[in-house]
């Protein structure tokens, strides 16, 4: 039978046992309390915050704890999501005071859901000189959901496919057009070629062929006429050489006429000189005429005086009745 002493005290004694045990306890306590404090700090328990309420039609994808980002930097954290009285989702965001200056009264908030990854709440502040966003501000959030575009895209694609199906159906306009094109190309390859396509196989085609033949004959006659005209115009006794001689003669006549005109010019100069002399003579004649007229007036007044004084003078007085 074992005694009380020999069973439990078999292990070798540990040096500085109490100290090591105390150190281990202190280590564990430090680790646990340090971790708790770090997690509280990481959760934002020690920083003053202000509240921002974002109102959205739909809060799908928004979870408590997700970030509000500004220029890619997280500046806030979603604390609560609740359904408002008006049926809209109210997303309550805590923004630390030290980051709140990035949010202005004119800031815009968006809620974006991507195809891959989670939902993102983003803030955009265009005018940084605006007043800062007050505590408890309520703002509407704009939704940009790429998955919401998918049903619209599918509907549009379905319409497109329907249209394509209609276009490519057996009795569609496109099929008829294509068959017509095929018939046309076969005609083009036929003996009549494009003429057959343009005018068909009937009377019109034959008339056109006849017209063409007559046109050809007409062109041959025109050609012959052109040869004759060439001979008459440019030949040895043609119009053009004779015209050249005529022009030479006219040139000589024009030289004579120029000489005559020069002589006439000299005559005109002489005449101008004569005219000047006549003008002077005419001035003298004016003075002479004035003298003569003065003398004549004197003679007339003298005759009138003689007539008045003469006894046989007629009574020139007019008596009124």
């Amino acid at each position: 039978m074992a005694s009380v002493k020999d069973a439990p005290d078999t292990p070798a004694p540990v040096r500085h046992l109490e100290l090591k045990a105390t150190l281990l306890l202190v280590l564990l306590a430090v680790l646990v309390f340090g971790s708790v404090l770090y997690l509280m700090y990481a959760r934002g328990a020690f920083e003053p915050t202000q509240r921002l309420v974002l109102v959205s039609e739909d809060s799908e994808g928004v979870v408590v704890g997700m970030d509000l980002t500004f220029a890619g930097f997280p500046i806030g954290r979603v604390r609560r999501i609740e359904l408002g009285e008006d049926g809209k989702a109210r997303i309550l965001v805590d923004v630390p005071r030290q980051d709140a200056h990035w949010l202005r009264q004119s800031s815009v908030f968006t809620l974006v859901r991507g195809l891959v990854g989670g939902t993102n709440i983003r803030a955009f502040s265009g005018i940084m000189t605006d007043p800062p966003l007050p505590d408890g501000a309520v703002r509407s959030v704009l939704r940009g959901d790429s998955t919401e575009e998918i049903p619209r895209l599918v509907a549009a694609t379905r319409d497109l496919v329907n249209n394509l199906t209609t276009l490519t159906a057996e009795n569609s306009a496109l099929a008829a057009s294509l068959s017509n094109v095929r018939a046309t190309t076969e005609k083009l390859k036929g003996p009549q070629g494009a003429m057959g396509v343009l005018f068909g196989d009937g009377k019109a085609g034959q008339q056109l062929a006849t017209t063409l033949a007559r046109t050809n004959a007409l062109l041959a006659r025109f050609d012959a006429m052109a040869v004759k005209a060439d001979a008459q115009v440019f030949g040895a006794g043609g119009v053009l050489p004779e015209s050249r001689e005529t022009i030479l003669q006219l040139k000589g006549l024009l030289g004579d006429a120029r000489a005559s005109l020069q002589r006439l010019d000299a005559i005109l100069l002489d005449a101008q000189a004569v005219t000047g002399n006549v003008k002077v003579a005419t001035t003298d004649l004016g003075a002479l005429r004035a003298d003569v007229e003065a003398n004549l007036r004197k003679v007339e007044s003298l005759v009138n005086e003689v007539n008045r004084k003469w006894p046989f003078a007629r009574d020139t007085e007019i008596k009124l009745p």
Partner: protein
Amino acid sequence: MIVNLPSEGAHARPARATLRWLADWARIIHFGAVIAVLAFSPSSYARDNRPALARQIVQGTVPVLWWFTLLSSLISLVLIRIVVVTALSYGLTRYALEMVVRVLVLELIPLTAALFVAVRCTLPDGEELAAMRRSGALEALTRGGVDPMRREVLPRVLAGVFSAITLAAVSCVVSLLLAYAVVYGFTPWGFAGYTRTVGHVFNPALSLIFVLKTLLFSLAVSVIPMASALIDPPPSRSRTSAEVRGLIRMFALILLIEVASLVGNYS
């Protein structure tokens, strides 16, 4: 009648096994309750019991702490590198750190620490208790006026709990530091973003589940081997040893706790 006898025995055997299984678990729970009462009673930490408690804590923690920290650091480094490089190649770098924290700190390290403590500390302690029980040393303590539960059992259980929690805490901190160094390098400029990510991962519910899981793991690996050593019948009456039975029960309970924590975290 003769033909029916084996079938009756065959029907009766599972029922007896089930009853014995239930009775064993009831005894384990009762043992755990007794240990909890002793752990919360100040008289257990009287001057006479302190050296035994201190020795068990030091012997159960110090030899495994450095090895486990080193091994877990190496494994964490490899896992962090794999996760970060894979996330980088798929363009999901913003989720890499979160995934590292979730996988390593929340899931792998508490489980590994508990298993390591079980293998290196509490299972050998349970075997030691079973040997003392077989040799009559515990009865001798009782006859000598010493409570063996306070002197021998409680220090081993508390040492196991302490060791599991300490190993998990140290390894979690080291893994978080390694994750920071691998992702950001040796620069202080990533601290704000890193802290924010860690804070985002450790929301209150997840933190509570993490603490509860670590605590329950440590209790499972500490209580069950001791309970198996003390309540199981002697080896002559059973096909398996107390150590193996304790190991099976411990693994079953750890599995249950892990499943429950996964349900709580990700459901």
